[in-house]
């Protein structure tokens, strides 16, 4: 009889419960906002705004989640995005204005001279190559992200620098390289076909949202269904046991950081396409927020446990709250207070949820009585 009670507490059940909890919190928050400001919050335009706002931040967050599950952290995630955005937009601008000016002049010209740009659009060969150019741009952005991530992974896995320090160093490094390339100037004037990635809609669903959903599915599959994903969990939970189980820890870590880099590159693309510009420093405030969201989403701060559903819902919850507060005209600082309290409350709830299990430590013995 008693044993039956206990069986509830197995881990998949736990995960499910957690997901249900996050979902209900989301519904609650959404309902609260809708009740407080029905006309404005539920307006079609606001819902659509949310759909446009969430993806870039969301992708950063799931990138951060992956490294945090592996027991690390990636402070360079934003500057990785900046760097890959800048390099890929140079490629994009150069190719789409191809044949009429050299790269140096392009860089100088981008900042101020609108007339050159519109003139270029007129002379640009249409049709055939634009898709190719965009595909190449996407490839370059992801590749740069991949390489940046790989360097992080190398420093963490091979040189054995604590992740927080390694990525702090590369954060400055990537930012620096981006500054050296652009001297701080923003790059703008992307072709409309590219802008579509950030502002377009397919069947009424914003393209960034589609990309975000695809990224979620990909990462969820990666974590749950691939050897690499299980390896990431294993390395985060107990690196020694992972090594003893025949996993190649350093390879897994390198891949982990590289994947996060690729996601940063993807976020960069959406960012670029959404605001039609890329510049050093854009999105800096996402860094701590993404760490916050990942922790709020139930990922262990020491790695090894956590799932993507929690993180995605945390992204949604935070975005809904923050948008709702904006509409209601709250000061940002009050919002910070509320976020902070929310974080601590959620942490307390999560920790007390597990307290019962801790007490009945060896469940099998209890059952076998």
């Amino acid at each position: 009889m008693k044993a039956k009670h206990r069986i509830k507490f197995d881990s998949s059940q736990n995960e499910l419960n957690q997901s249900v909890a996050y979902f209900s919190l989301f519904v609650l928050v959404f309902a609260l906002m809708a009740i407080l400001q029905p006309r404005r919050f539920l307006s079609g335009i606001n819902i659509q705004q949310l759909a446009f706002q969430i993806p870039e931040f969301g992708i950063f967050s799931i990138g951060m989640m992956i490294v945090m599950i592996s027991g690390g952290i990636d402070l360079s995630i934003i500057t990785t995005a900046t760097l890959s955005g800048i390099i890929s937009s140079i490629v994009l601008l150069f190719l789409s204005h191809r044949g009429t000016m050299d790269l140096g002049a392009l860089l100088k010209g981008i900042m101020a001279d609108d007339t050159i740009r519109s003139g270029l659009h007129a002379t640009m060969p249409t049709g055939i190559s634009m898709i190719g150019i965009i595909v190449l741009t996407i490839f370059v952005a992801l590749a740069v992200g991949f390489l940046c991530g790989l360097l992080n992974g190398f420093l963490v896995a091979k040189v054995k620098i604590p992740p927080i320090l390694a990525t702090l160093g590369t954060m400055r490094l990537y930012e620096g390289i981006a500054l050296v390339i652009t001297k701080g100037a923003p790059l703008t004037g992307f072709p409309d076909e590219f802008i579509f990635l950030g502002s377009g809609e397919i069947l009424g669903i914003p393209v960034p949202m589609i990309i975000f959903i695809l990224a979620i599915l990909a990462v969820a599959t990666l974590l749950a269904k691939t050897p690499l994903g299980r390896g990431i969990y294993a390395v985060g939970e107990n690196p020694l046991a992972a090594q003893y189980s025949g996993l190649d820890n350093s390879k897994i870590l390198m891949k982990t950081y590289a994947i996060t880099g690729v996601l940063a590159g993807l976020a960069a693309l959406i960012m670029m396409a959404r605001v039609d510009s890329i510049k050093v420093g854009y999105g800096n405030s996402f860094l701590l927020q993404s760490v916050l969201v990942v922790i709020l989403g139930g990922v262990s701060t020491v790695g090894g446990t956590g799932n993507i559903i929690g993180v995605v819902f945390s992204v949604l919850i935070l975005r809904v709250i923050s948008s709702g507060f904006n509409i209601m005209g709250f000061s940002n600082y009050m919002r910070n207070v509320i976020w902070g309290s929310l974080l601590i409350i959620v942490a307390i709830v999560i920790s007390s949820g597990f307290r019962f299990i801790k007490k009945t430590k060896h469940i099998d013995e209890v059952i076998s009585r």
Partner: protein
Amino acid sequence: MAEEHCIVMENISKSYAGVEALDNVGIDILKGEVHCLIGENGSGKSTLIKIIAGVITPSRGACITIHGKNYSKLTPVDSMRQGIQIIYQDLSLFPNMTVAENIAINQLLESGKQTISKRLIHEIASNALKTICIDLKLETLVGDLPIAKQQIVAISRAVACGESLIIMDEPTSSLGKKDIDCLFRIIRTLKSNGISILFVGHKLNEIFEIADRVTVLKDGKSLGTHDIHELTYQKVIELMTGKALAISNYERDYPSAEPLLEVRNLSKRFQFKDINFTLYPGEIIGVTGLVGSGRTEMVSSLFGLNPADSGKILVNGKLTPIRSVRDALRAGICYVPEDRLSQGLFMNHSIKNNIIITIFHDLLNRLGLLESGKVKQTSSLWVKDLAIRTPSIELPVKQLSGGNQQRVVIAKWLARNPRILILDGPTIGVDVGAKEEIHKTIRALAGNGLGIIFVSDEAFEVVQHSHRIIIMKEGQVVEIVDSKDVLETDLLEKID
């Protein structure tokens, strides 16, 4: 009363969430005696000592008398003031602090001093070490010490406090023979100083060597306290497991196939030298020796964790260099590590995920993704095969008991279908009943044609369950003996 009681406990009950962990248990410890508390895992031993330490409050009606003083509720501070000190299985030492600091810290805390000096610390530490006649470098970091010496530090710490009762929770589980002798010598010294010892354990030979009286716990109930002279091995095992245990001798068919593994002149600087042996299919080779004899280093080099500097390894007659874990796995060699908590298991992950960690490639579908059906099927199969007691394969491993955890580790490797299985201390920290089941598993595996290398401290176990025994000392093989030709006592001598 001629004999003075140190502590008397009666009517001790404790239940967690409706499950009785302790049911009306009583125990009394005399001054200057070595009292053994034995029982299988989950029998309530640790709950009982935690109650003595004041960490856990018993259910109502409990009556605890320490040195004649009555307590209905014991706090940790009371317990400590009364001179009760526990040496936990994990030793509760501070790896980042020096030997001297670790020894002195409890006494300093008790004295209520707010400031300390190095001189004082050293004085306390060296006095304590002198009491138990041991010499240790005071400035070494405890984390850098081998486990046996850490144990000594923990005992010295208890001694430094001038305790009247020292509780040792399975103190010998990670010690070699020599260290155990040393520990017993210390215990006798303490005893002669009038200090009582509550010795929690399950290695019967040790209990018979050191105990004055024995209390047996089973399923949260006390089966009474017995004088050691009234007991026999057989009787104790019967009491603990509740059934008569047949110690069957291993069928010692000498295997006659081609050698599975040949090791020639394997050496590694500072660790081991010129190791030579051959392993046949279906054979169990026991490896024994003291901690520091190089046995763990040697077997871990076969698994590629600690690659050797020179020498040859032949698997199935083919030269197989093993430079990494993956090389070993490719050659069909698997390794169940000594420390299952830190080296073998992912405690927060489910049983399922722990088992499949080694066999991803078998569970992929055509898209290269793990197929959840296969994952469940395979892991359930192993759970069933190894009789792992669990309601669900989704349960985190940390919720299993030691024996079942060990079986998860073994399952993880068997899932790979290895040809050679190295087991490093597979029965450490596992109680008698579970131990027997693990032995059975090992024999069954050998019966299926696996070659097994079985590292253990317990001479008894090695003699019982292997064909041949490699005895190691100071990094070298002293002798390889046939277990038919050797007695347990001979073996002990050879090890030292």
